[in-house]
């Protein structure tokens, strides 16, 4: 093997000092030559490209990713007041320094040439720049006008579609301002996110937040991922699954697709979409029949188990198998396996929460965990997606709710009001495409007299607006954020806002001042709001700003005192739940009977639908995209997407006469989108799946495509909407 000559370390040292005799001549000649030719060379490419980003940074600022609840704390690298790179903070024990591509895309997005940097007002078909002050005055006038025109019933004539805010202070000030001004209709993303799950958790266990944290995984013997596609939606947590497996935990994954998560688990159980509830009821029935359930726990800590047990009787293994497609023996063996062990943790994916039977399903999961006695304690419990929301915001809200402020309307009602022309001002801070039957939502928004958009790019939402007041992106403002491990972290401001972009806390406090004058509290920065909230929230008392700023991992509430280390693990360590009687309540009011029903619009449940739409439609998230709008503007993220690719099993494709790569229409009861066939063995036959993140205006082909919510029928459970499980069909283009 030809040995390549390598510089010895001695030589290297000398080389650094520039006196290597062997290379002296050469280096001399090169540098002389370089000088001579400088004018010939393109300056972009000639000088010092070797000095890569790392060696050119001026300063580093501790920050935090604004996207998912993983809340990767980061270190932002800055050169000449420009963010050039971002690294995960290696002292963060939840992430161990990792971060995903979405968080990295912010470096590109912040400086995107397509970003909106100035307030714009509609001028016929085009846009005109106006100063921020004027824009704010205009909005304030419109709001005052509502009050003048409808002095008694103005409350529901203004609405705000709120995003997953880039910091908690944004959320708090928005609530402060609108509540104090008398407008309750802030429509949160929870309505299309995990609202069903969070509400069920609150009803059954008392808190709507995550009952345990992922450091408990290592202590569990079994981990059940219920549609929890961790590798795609919380990639940084995969390490925790691995650590648990290394300690002997067995991981079982319920999903109808082979995803990157599949490879990280020991076993995958494939079931029909929307039937998890039936599986859990069936497993409870097995436990009851074989008297495998934890009788002591059930007796001492659970209300309503008897009723659940008797309701489960009809879900025999055979019936369950018929519904779910899981073999009857598997139902039995799974139930036995999950009951007879030291501890099981059930991790519930977000998609479970987005079915019309979501609350039934979540209750069935809670009941199953209760029956096995694995609901609370070390190595036990339930972990939902998007957990960590502080319940205490309620106290804060109360303080700013004017007396007699109406209850907030559900977003369905708000959209209905818009359609009727009963909403005059909409502050749009989210996509409209996050709602089912999105085209209908779009039409409704177009009936609103005055739409203000608080986004980042000239996207479809912006084009529907009358006024655009662009917002800062995460690097440009400070704030606190809460994460899925109930941890709270602080993000420093890394750079000055670009252009005339305004952080949310400032926008809402400015607006509050305009509307309420001196009545509105003086706020000098996000720190003030953080402190205000902390002082009003007992479980956050110990989370002082100094502590947060020093903690790359974040501190998990409850943290009642400054010397309290924060609380990890089970929220209910002594099986004392947060319900009034401290017991698990399996039969709370509003959840209806214990049962499983077909998701609405499912071809399996409804013959009429089956006739025309025999395939089951599903969709979901991809690793490199954050929801519907933001990351679609990143060229880096666009490298990985394939546009509207739709996963189809070859058998299904053969039945429907479509071939790999072919363009087809996916049609549902409410519309059709164009998509390209991607044949894969990794999906249950009879089901199709496609990414939900695509966006028609994206400048990058990989991200460009139709939003799936254009064809999502408008079906809702009690709190949140359904996005999966309804019927569809394929048509050749």
């Amino acid at each position, binding site marked *: 093997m*030809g040995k390549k000559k390598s510089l010895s370390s001695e030589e290297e040292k000398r080389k650094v000092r520039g006196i290597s005799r062997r290379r002296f001549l050469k280096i001399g*000649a*090169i540098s002389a*030559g370089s000088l001579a*030719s400088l004018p*010939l*060379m393109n300056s972009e*490419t000639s000088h010092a490209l070797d000095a890569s980003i790392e060696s050119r940074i001026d300063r580093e600022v501790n920050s935090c990713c604004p996207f998912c609840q993983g809340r990767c704390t980061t270190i932002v690298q800055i050169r000449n007041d420009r963010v050039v790179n971002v690294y995960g903070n290696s002292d963060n024990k939840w992430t161990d320094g990792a971060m995903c591509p979405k968080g990295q895309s912010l470096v590109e997005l912040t400086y995107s040439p397509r970003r909106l940097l100035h307030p714009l007002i509609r001028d016929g078909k085009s846009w005109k720049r106006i100063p921020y002050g004027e824009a704010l005055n205009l909005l304030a006038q419109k709001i005052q006008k509502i009050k003048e025109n409808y002095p008694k019933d103005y409350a529901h004539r203004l609405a705000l579609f709120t995003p997953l805010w880039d910091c908690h202070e944004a959320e708090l000030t928005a609530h402060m301002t609108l509540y104090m001004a008398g407008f309750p209709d802030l429509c949160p993303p929870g309505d299309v996110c995990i609202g069903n799950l969070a509400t069920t958790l609150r009803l059954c266990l008392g808190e709507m937040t995550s009952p345990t944290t992922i450091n408990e995984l290592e202590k569990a013997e079994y981990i059940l991922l219920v549609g929890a596609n961790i590798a795609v939606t919380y990639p940084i947590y995969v390490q925790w699954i691995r650590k648990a497996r290394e300690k002997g935990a067995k991981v079982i994954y319920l999903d109808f697709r082979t995803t990157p998560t599949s490879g990280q688990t020991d076993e995958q159980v494939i079931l029909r979409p929307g039937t998890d509830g039936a599986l859990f009821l069936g497993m409870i029935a097995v436990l009851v029949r074989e008297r495998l359930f934890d009788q002591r726990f059930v007796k001492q800590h659970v209300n309503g188990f008897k009723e659940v047990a008797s309701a489960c009787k009809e879900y025999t293994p055979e019936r369950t198998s018929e519904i779910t497609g899981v073999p009857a023996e598997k139902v039995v063996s799974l139930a036995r396996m999950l009951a007879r062990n030291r501890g099981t943790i059930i991790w519930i994916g977000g998609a479970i929460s987005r079915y019309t039977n979501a609350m039934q399903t979540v209750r069935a999961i809670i009941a199953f965990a209760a029956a096995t006695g694995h609901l609370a304690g070390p190595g036990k419990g339930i972990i939902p997606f998007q957990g960590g929301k502080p319940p205490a915001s309620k106290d804060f809200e109360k303080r700013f709710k004017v007396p007699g402020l109406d209850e907030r309307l559900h977003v369905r009602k708000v959209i209905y009001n818009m359609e009727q022309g009963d909403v005059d001002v909409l502050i749009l801070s989210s996509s409209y495409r996050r709602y089912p039957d999105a085209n209908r939502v779009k039409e409704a928004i177009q009936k609103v007299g005055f739409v203000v958009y608080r986004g980042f790019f000239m996207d479809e939402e912006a084009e529907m607006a009358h006024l655009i007041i662009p917002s800062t992106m995460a690097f440009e403002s400070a704030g606190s954020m809460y994460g899925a491990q109930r941890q709270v972290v602080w993000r420093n401001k890394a750079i000055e806002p670009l252009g005339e972009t305004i952080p949310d806390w400032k926008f809402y406090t400015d607006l509050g001042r305009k509307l309420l004058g001196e009545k509105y509290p003086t706020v000098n920065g996000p720190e003030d709001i953080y402190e205000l909230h902390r002082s009003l929230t007992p479980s956050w008392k110990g989370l002082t700003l100094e502590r947060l700023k020093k903690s790359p991992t974040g501190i998990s509430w409850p943290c009642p005192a400054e010397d309290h280390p924060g609380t990890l693990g089970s929220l209910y360590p002594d099986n004392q739940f947060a319900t009034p009687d401290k017991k698990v309540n399996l039969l709370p009011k509003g959840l209806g009977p214990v049962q499983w029903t077909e998701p609405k619009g499912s071809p399996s449940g409804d013959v009429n639908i089956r006739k025309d739409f025999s395939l089951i439609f599903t969709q979901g998230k991809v690793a490199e995209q954050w929801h519907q709008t933001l990351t679609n503007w990143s060229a880096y993220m666009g490298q990985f997407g394939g546009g509207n690719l739709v996963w189809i099993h070859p058998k299904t494709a053969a039945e429907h006469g479509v071939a790999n790569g072919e363009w087809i229409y996916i049609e549902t009861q409410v519309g059709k989108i164009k998509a390209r066939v991607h044949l894969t063995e990794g999906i249950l036959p009879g089901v199709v799946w496609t990414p939900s993140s695509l966006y028609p205006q994206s400048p990058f082909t990989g991200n460009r495509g139709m939003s799936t919510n254009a064809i999502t029928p408008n079906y809702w459970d009690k709190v949140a909407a359904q996005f999966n499980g309804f019927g569809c069909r394929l048509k050749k283009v």
Partner: protein
Amino acid sequence: MSEVTWGTVIALALWFIGVSSGAYRLSALASRKKEDPGWAKVGLTSAFLALITLAAGMGFLVLDLRQKFRFWYLLLNLNPESPMSIGVWFLSIFGILCLCHLIFWMPEPWRKRLPLIGGWSIWNNWRIHGYVAKFGMYVAIVVAVYTGVLLAATSIPLWRNFFLPPLIFFSALACGLTCGTLATMSLTRKIGDKTLFLPLRFLQSSLRPTLVIMLALTGGFLILALVQSVTGVKTHLISLGWMGFLWWGGAIGVGMIWPLINSFRAEKSFQARAQLTCWITFIGGLVLRWVLLYAGQI
């Protein structure tokens, strides 16, 4: 594989360099027979040709660099493991030799007009011209072989073939011989001119073995590639896609077999067709390089 790193520009560069080395050799051979007016014409024309095709070849090489203005970095470094580095040094030496060789060939009045060096008496020294010609021949060989080794010493399976360097050398030779003769014929504008009788006869007798060897080397090349089951040979060269068409029809059919048939004709008949024969051999060389380049990379 997917992206073609070296395209038409490199094919042209390799071809021109090959032509240059071949033309130089022709002119060097002619330098021993300056007294024959035909050879003298051939000598001068191909010496000139060697220089301009070399310039063109090196120009195309530089043109293909993504950093064209850094081309001179090549002359600041010698990496004995890099065929390109060796090649570039030899090309530079060859360039100087080509220039000298041309000046040697120049008629006195032309030479006198050259600034500075034109008046040197050395140009009249036949002995030195002979040495330069001889030495240049060997450098020309290295330069021609270099255009083959450049491709062969890579990881591209199709090029990593021991028959490639000689094949490219013989092709360069054929191209240079034909191109030099062709240029002379065109310049004298008297086809079948009796003065060119000797050079044309030489062309016929040298082309014959050259083309036979080329065909044999091509065969060897294909067999070796097939034995090593190199990907792409079957899809691009053996099959009759458009690439296979260029290969069989262009590089081999038109570029080797047709001129070979011509070279077996009677001398008169060959000389009558000399111009065509030259053209097809010459163009065939370009097609050969082009096809090899692309077939290796796609």
